[in-house]
């Protein structure tokens, strides 16, 4: 072809191809829709998953022993099995056990939410915060502190959750309105746009209200410290709801990875699946973010790590993410407590633990896309 600008030759075609490419860096090497029927593959996958679950349990137990006051393992076990009123038992029961449970729940929630968002939008760069969760929650916190004078985590945690849910709902309305509702790029762009507006307003308000700025900077960083045990029950319910919704959509996720047209042709209800996934993401990411802060990087990197072990099947990937993400978060929390007690938040350590893993993964020979 003689033209120096090939893009100009056939605008229709090129548009389609760039748009498809834009929807994700995912030149997918998708496996078959059903998991490979190799004997032993199932056993291998579930065995490995079990190992990771065991690792998580051990890590949680370990996190009960570590802290400003070291508590011996036998005492830890004793505190769990035959609790009494001694000081050590009180520390474990009132502060360390809720903290460990919070880490497991919030880690799972953020991880699953990230995996769902990446699968649904077919964009490996998507994270739970992309649908406006972080921006909505932080704007709500700024309003709660700056306008209503609410102070402290327990005061604003419900504001944060409400803000996150409202923001995601608005993103859905903008991104999915109209007949081209099934274009995930529109959803991502709507999330980016709305998130930007909300965070812009939030920053402007925070700069006018120093007290709100002060609380916001403490919440944003993401930490398991100083959270009341009261959030555990709502967070647990949210995780349960999210996991059930995610389990329902597992098969549709595999189909969606092949593209909307193929999924429709295979008989999947694409629109309904998207709504369910979005609902799950909202509940999971909203609750976890409100409880521990904006640690959305965890939701971004955990699915990439999980895909290493699970292969392309979305259901296995979700299961692995649900276990690997809390491992990273708990590890970050314990490390932070050991290195500089009380001064190094889990959100900070999480980035320093997770990012090198992500970089190593990226440097492996074949980058596995969504």
């Amino acid at each position, binding site marked *: *072809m003689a033209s120096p*600008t*090939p*893009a*100009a*030759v056939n*605008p*229709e075609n*090129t*548009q389609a191809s*760039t748009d498809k*490419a*834009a929807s994700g*860096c995912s030149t997918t090497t998708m496996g078959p829709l059903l998991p490979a029927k190799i004997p032993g593959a199932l056993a291998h996958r579930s065995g490995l998953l079990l190992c990771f679950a065991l690792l998580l349990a051990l890590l949680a137990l370990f996190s009960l022993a570590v802290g400003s006051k070291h508590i011996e393992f036998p005492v830890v076990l004793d505190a769990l099995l035959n609790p009494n009123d001694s000081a050590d038992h009180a520390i474990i029961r009132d502060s360390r056990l809720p903290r460990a449970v919070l880490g497991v729940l919030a880690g799972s929630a953020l991880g699953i939410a990230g995996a769902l968002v990446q699968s649904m939008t077919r*964009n*490996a*760069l998507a994270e739970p915060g992309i649908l406006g969760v972080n921006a909505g929650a932080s704007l709500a916190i700024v309003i709660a502190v700056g306008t209503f004078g609410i102070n402290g985590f327990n005061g604003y945690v419900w504001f944060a959750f409400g803000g996150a849910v409202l923001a995601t709902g608005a993103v859905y309305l*903008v991104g999915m*309105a*109209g*007949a*081209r509702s099934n274009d995930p*790029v*529109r959803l*991502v*762009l709507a999330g*980016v*746009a*709305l*998130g*930007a*507006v909300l965070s*812009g307003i939030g*920053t*402007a308000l925070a*700069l*006018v209200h*120093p007290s709100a*700025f*002060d609380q916001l*900077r403490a919440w*944003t*960083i993401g930490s398991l410290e100083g959270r009341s045990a009261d959030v555990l029950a709502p967070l647990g319910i949210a995780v349960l709801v999210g996991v059930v919704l995610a389990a329902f959509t597992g098969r549709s996720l595999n189909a969606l990875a092949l593209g909307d047209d193929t999924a429709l042709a295979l008989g999947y209800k694409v629109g309904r699946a998207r709504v369910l996934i979005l609902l799950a993401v909202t509940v999971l990411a909203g609750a976890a973010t409100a409880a521990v802060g904006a640690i959305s*990087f965890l939701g*971004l*990197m955990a699915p*990439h790590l999980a895909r290493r072990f699970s292969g392309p099947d979305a259901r296995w990937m979700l299961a692995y993410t649900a276990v690997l993400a809390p491992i990273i978060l708990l590890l970050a929390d314990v490390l932070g407590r050991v290195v500089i007690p009380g001064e*190094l*938040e889990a959100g*900070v*350590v999480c*980035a320093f633990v*997770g*990012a090198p893993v*992500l*970089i190593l*993964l*990226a*440097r492996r020979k074949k*980058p596995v896309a969504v």
Partner: protein
Amino acid sequence: MSAAPEAPAAARVRVLGRARRLGRETALCLLLSALAVLFALLVIGSGDYPMGPGKVVNVILGGGEGLDSTIVFQWRAPRAVAALAFGAALGVAGAVFQSLTRNPLGSPDIIGFSTGAYTGALLALTLVGGSFLATSLGALAGGLLTALAVYFLAWRRGSHGFRLILVGIGISAMLAALNQWLVLRAEIEVAMAAAVWGAGTLNGVGWPVLVPALIAIVPILGLVLAGGTTLNMLELGDDTATALGIRVEPARLTMVVLAVLLTAATTAVAGPIAFVALVAPQLAKRLNRAAGMRLAPAACMGALLLVASDLVAQRLFAPVQLPVGVVTVSIGGVYLIWLLAREGRAANRI
């Protein structure tokens, strides 16, 4: 196409189509530039000593008295010029990255430049005390070091776009966490000053800092705009681009370096102004309706977006001056939402 002779009618349609497309692009650029200049005149005219656009033009053309001309040339013009130049630079840088990564979320941020610059500036503000020069130098060093680190960590027999993004996200996440930690540990006044810088602001920009930035930005802008065709070929994929005679790796590296330098010059003076690089190319693309990423409309859109945002940032809560970055995200975001919603409605009608 070149093999088989085309029917004259088909060829005519093709040529007409291309001409119409280029015509649309030119018209769009002219319209956006005209609006941007108009807003720049309004920026120059606004303040405690207001002047109408006509008077501003008169002063610029040399018809001003001593005080008027001092106000226009020394006090207010640097800010307006900075908004125009920085907006164009950010728009083009964003377009280059979105084109190279073929991802609408692509922007110079993905290789960590802005986050690294913020780290550098924060360190300068918290450790050295943060004069304008120290902050600028800190930002420049932080941003460039980060970008270099990301590029080398991502290098493995070629810079695969996806790998570059993942490594960039990883490094950015670490630096962002460090930034938040620094902000949380700093005194509240220092933290808020840092937050203003971190949002991106044109407050206090004068000729002494602007001129060096302009000396860097203007020629680089020209180079990048000249490379637009190469960029469109790279969009077709590495294999196709190679077949079309592009040396893919050097071409990509050159474009990345130029885009990073544009961001660097801007960030050093004004801080990491959020969102212009992300949204200006998308807005321009939606208005232009061309296939692939076009650089000139992105530049004009970026300039318009930044200068209009600066007017709002100055006037909205006057005399309190908002950082312009807070306004760019709001205006750009609202406009993008409106475009998306309109697209949805248009698709409904069909």
